[in-house]
């Protein structure tokens, strides 16, 4: 059966269920798929994590090296988030430099980490104005079964929590753990009319790409938002989604902490 007919059938099914107040996989509207976090999967990286969110899979590796600070923050380390949506992960991804989707993904993940001040950048200074730690967060998509963004955000912060600063390799004293202050959670909702579905699967995304991502820190502050897709959002729905995102983030954060501390 050709792909586009399949998409149409899925779409009808998702919408029909939705009219009955249900999701096709039986989840509640504000429920994430099952999450699995494994840290330290890449021994050669300074930190790493493999995250499965349902069937969506992302691996993130952290590499660090000394480098020059930005002129306006001479005493702070630098975080660079980069995403490669390699063609292995989806029939629709193509090799080549990052397109607008991967740029947006990397930048939204970056903002969640940056604005929650999850990494204590002031403790990444080696010599003021000259040398600071640069933290490369490389997001490598493996399987895109929907909502790569939230999976990437989870994998990024998990990998950072797993990171040891390779000071000894650069003759800068003993290795130490990357100082982490927060665990921001990115919550993406699919907007369908006046309803929304948190953590949409690929099948659910067959109805469209209208999403809203809300990143929440551990004190229930919103640290980043991104409306993505060509749809109009009402104020009322926005408030509902924010409310639900705060709740979903809290639960997911607990689950991630539990899994990481066990491993």
């Amino acid at each position, binding site marked *: 059966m050709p792909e586009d007919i399949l998409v149409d059938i899925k779409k009808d099914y998702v919408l029909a269920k939705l009219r009955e107040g249900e999701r096709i996989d039986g989840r509640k509207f504000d429920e994430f798929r099952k999450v699995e976090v494994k840290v330290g999967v890449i021994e050669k990286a300074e930190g790493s994590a493999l995250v499965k969110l349902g069937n969506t899979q992302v691996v993130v590796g952290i590499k660090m090296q000394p480098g020059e600070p930005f002129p306006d923050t001479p005493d702070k380390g630098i975080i660079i988030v980069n995403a490669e949506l390699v063609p292995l992960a989806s029939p629709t991804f193509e090799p080549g430099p990052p397109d607008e989707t991967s740029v947006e993904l990397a930048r939204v993940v970056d903002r969640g980490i940056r604005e929650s001040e999850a990494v204590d950048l002031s403790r990444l200074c080696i010599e003021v104005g000259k040398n600071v730690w640069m933290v490369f967060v490389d997001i490598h998509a493996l399987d895109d079964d929907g909502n790569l963004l939230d999976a990437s955000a989870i994998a990024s912060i998990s990998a950072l929590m797993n990171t040891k600063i390779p000071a000894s390799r650069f003759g800068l004293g003993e290795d130490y753990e990357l100082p982490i202050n927060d665990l921001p959670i990115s919550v993406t909702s699919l907007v369908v009319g006046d309803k929304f579905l948190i953590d949409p699967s690929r099948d659910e995304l067959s109805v469209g790409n209208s999403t*809203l991502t809300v990143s929440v*820190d551990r004190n229930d*502050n*919103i640290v980043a*938002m*991104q409306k993505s897709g060509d749809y*109009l959002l009402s104020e009322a729905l926005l408030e509902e989604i924010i409310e639900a995102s705060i709740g979903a983030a809290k639960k997911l954060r607990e689950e991630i902490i539990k899994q990481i501390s066990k491993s």
Partner: protein
Amino acid sequence: MSRPDKFIVDGKRLDGRLPDQLRPIKIEVDVLKRADGSCYIEMGKNKVVAAVYGPREAFPRHIQDPSKVVVRYRYNMAPFSVEERKRPGPDRRSVEISKVSKEAFETIIMKELFPRSVVDIFVEVLQADAGSRTACINAASVALVDAGIPVKGMLTSVAVAKVDGTLVLDPMKEEDNFGDADMPFAFLIRGGKIESIALLQMDGRMTKAEIKDAIALAKKGAMEIYNLQREAIMKQFVEEEE
């Protein structure tokens, strides 16, 4: 530029504005001959030009959509628009701004009217200040009307920031760089009323309640800008009539 000690003194901001006050805005319509529609806007120290081409045949062909028009949006900064010369060509920031702006305009253009065609919206930032993306959307929105593209309403954009725990409208550079949060909006305004949100981004730290207040403040600012946009378009029509 370094972080100021206080952003608000005696109820006034660093540039003397009240928290709910916009920067000065200047709008000129139909400033370019080649483009089908165009607009020049100054918003604070932002100086931007928008041009609209189309609907025209989409090329290369494989981007054509048989059911509706394709919208493209290109946000571009002139090399001399910022303190340190910017290398020509798109960077990641421009790519993201172009994407979310394009999606905002897709919500207001009557896309089904022009299958297989493209509407190109090009915006050049000649001088950049805080909020260049909002200035660009406001200019593009007017240019779109100037080009005669059928739209559902006007797109009007403004940002709200949080500084010293206070929400401020249309932030200046210092508030943007060193404030606690920044939240750009674009609203669809139809029949003189704000209907819904077409663009929304946010970074910083805000509570749920603050976000609600920010929306209200943004709406107030947007209505003021909308009136200026309308006025500029009207003036243009009158001039053309004469």
